[in-house]
């Protein structure tokens, strides 16, 4: 459950200050698949950073489940991210020389989970993200871009987060592979009831979600159900 109440963010740089978000309010229920869409400079990245507990709003309140995330210290935010948020980035951000499995286990290192439990959960997450077992011990720079993004999705799933936050997850992929990755999010949302927030500047990508929040100039332009949701059926062989 995400509740944003009048969130604003102002960056102060010497005598100049820039207001990037101007009182944004919305809420996302558990199990929703929402796209936050807007052109670059609209404030969507700042919004994503706040939702992802990477940054705190200047004003307003942000509640994630029962935690008020808007006024926490850096380490408390890190704790929230560890327990409740799974990130998927445009550029995957995998550890290049490490194996697929080790990449997925990384969040559990900081959660201080036992080794056997780590391996078990990481393998399960990889299967959930659609990467068959034969790839689990490959180095993460030996696999294709689509597979890399699946590893990143598995890494986001492994700590069983309340929220999966995907920042332009298809930006570095060709449209076919991008579509398969989007269908993976749809499947996780449909079958496991995962809450997914997708940040994108492309309408086409946003149309894979159930609901689209349109951001422009630091405010919400529109927030409505997506009437023409694109549904793709993924097949593992294609990745």
């Amino acid at each position: 459950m995400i509740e944003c109440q009048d969130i604003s963010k102002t960056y102060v740089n010497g005598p100049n200050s820039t207001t990037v978000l101007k009182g944004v309010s919305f809420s996302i229920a558990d199990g929703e698949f929402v796209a936050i869409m807007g052109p670059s400079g609209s404030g969507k990245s700042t919004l994503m950073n706040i939702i992802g507990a990477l940054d705190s709003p200047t004003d307003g309140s942000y509640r994630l489940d029962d935690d008020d995330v808007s006024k926490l210290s850096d380490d408390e935010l890190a704790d929230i991210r560890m327990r409740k948020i799974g990130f998927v980035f445009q550029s995957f951000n995998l550890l290049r020389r490490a194996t697929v499995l080790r990449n997925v286990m990384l969040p559990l290192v900081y959660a201080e989970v036992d080794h056997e439990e780590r391996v078990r959960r990481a393998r399960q997450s990889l299967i959930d993200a659609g990467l068959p077992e034969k790839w689990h011990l490959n180095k993460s720079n030996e696999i294709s871009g689509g597979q890399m993004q699946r590893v990143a999705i598995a890494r986001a799933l492994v700590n069983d987060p309340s929220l999966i936050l995907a920042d332009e997850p298809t930006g570095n992929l060709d449209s076919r592979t991008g579509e398969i990755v989007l269908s993976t999010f749809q499947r996780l949302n449909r079958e496991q009831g995962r809450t997914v927030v997708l940040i994108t500047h492309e309408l086409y990508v946003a149309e894979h979600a159930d609901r689209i929040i349109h951001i422009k100039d630091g405010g919400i332009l529109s927030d409505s159900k997506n009437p023409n949701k694109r549904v793709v059926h993924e097949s593992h062989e294609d990745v």
Partner: protein
Amino acid sequence: MKTSDILQETYWALLSNKARSGLTVLGIVIGIGSVIAMIAIGQGAQGSIQSSIQSLGANLIIVFPGAQRGPGVQASAGRGSAQSLKLSDAEAISRLPEAKAVSPEVSSRSQVAARGTNTNTSIVGVTPSYPGVRNVEVDQGSFFTDAQQRSSEKVAIIGPSVRDDLFGAGNEPVGQVIRIKGSQFKVIGMTKAKGGSGFNNQDDQIFIPITTAQRYLTGNEYVSQIAVQANDEASMASLQSGVTSLLLQRHNIGDAASADFSTMNQADIVAAASSVTGTFTLLLGSVAGISLIVGGIGIMNMMLTTVTERTREIGLRKAIGAKKRDISLQFLAESVALTFLGGFLGILLGGLISWAVARFGNIASSVSASSVLLAFGVSAGIGVIFGYWPARRAAGLNPIEALRYE
């Protein structure tokens, strides 16, 4: 983050950049290795100098003619050149209760010839008590007797180096004749090699009766020094003051400050030599220490580069829940691991160098446990000191900017 995970991450991180890690470690290896080797050589030299001073005799007080000198500052031109001590002074000293034995001596340097060869060596006029006081042992033949001294016989006991120079190594010297300043001396004995080296080769000496030396070599009744042996270490101080007051009285000097002789305690000589070699060790050690600091700067340089290169990785780790402490511990562990590895290899290298110096350079050296411990402590300390700033920098990165870093 568990300790085992930190170690594992460190292992992976260092292994992923073997060449760079190896070169950085090399800097520490050289630094620690040279510190260990230099301290070993310095301490070895100190030990050998002290033992060679001890081999001059035990519990000695040496009386020199001339003015008082400070410990260690000893101009050799002054020694024996002043004329104030006589054989009768030595006899008077021998009657002091604390004096176990007294050995006056007259020394000079002279050309010595035998069978067409010649050498320049030190001629020492001594009494029969000399071997006992100065730890000199006779290897072949015998030392001269009281009777030979009283009658100023021209007999000589030569050192092994003199034998090698005049007769060749291995040849029988006893019974040969040598010429010193135009007088013929009969060789009646040879001393055992002491292996003295450095400041004063005790094997390159010729001993003759002191009365003979005064008559044929110096032509006067003065002596160059008087060595007095105390009964034991505890009576050294009272012996020294006893000798001083006795000689002041005999020379009719009221004020001790204007004494025409000086006394030197063997402990003072050892202390002086120790302070010289101590300074020497410190000098060597600090030069080596500088290379250790350079190695440490190498570590810092590598860690800063690593932090910059891995900015995105740090951003990712923070995004998935790493706290500041986790990040700084991880990078600190990397630098400490590097210095520990370097310290370990450096101790091996230092031990090898000091072994090689002892084996091939004939300089005594010993690696002490304390220097190994010091090296390990210092290397760990360097890891923490030079790794702290890069680690702090990594921990302080803003995750949003770090993730966006190109």
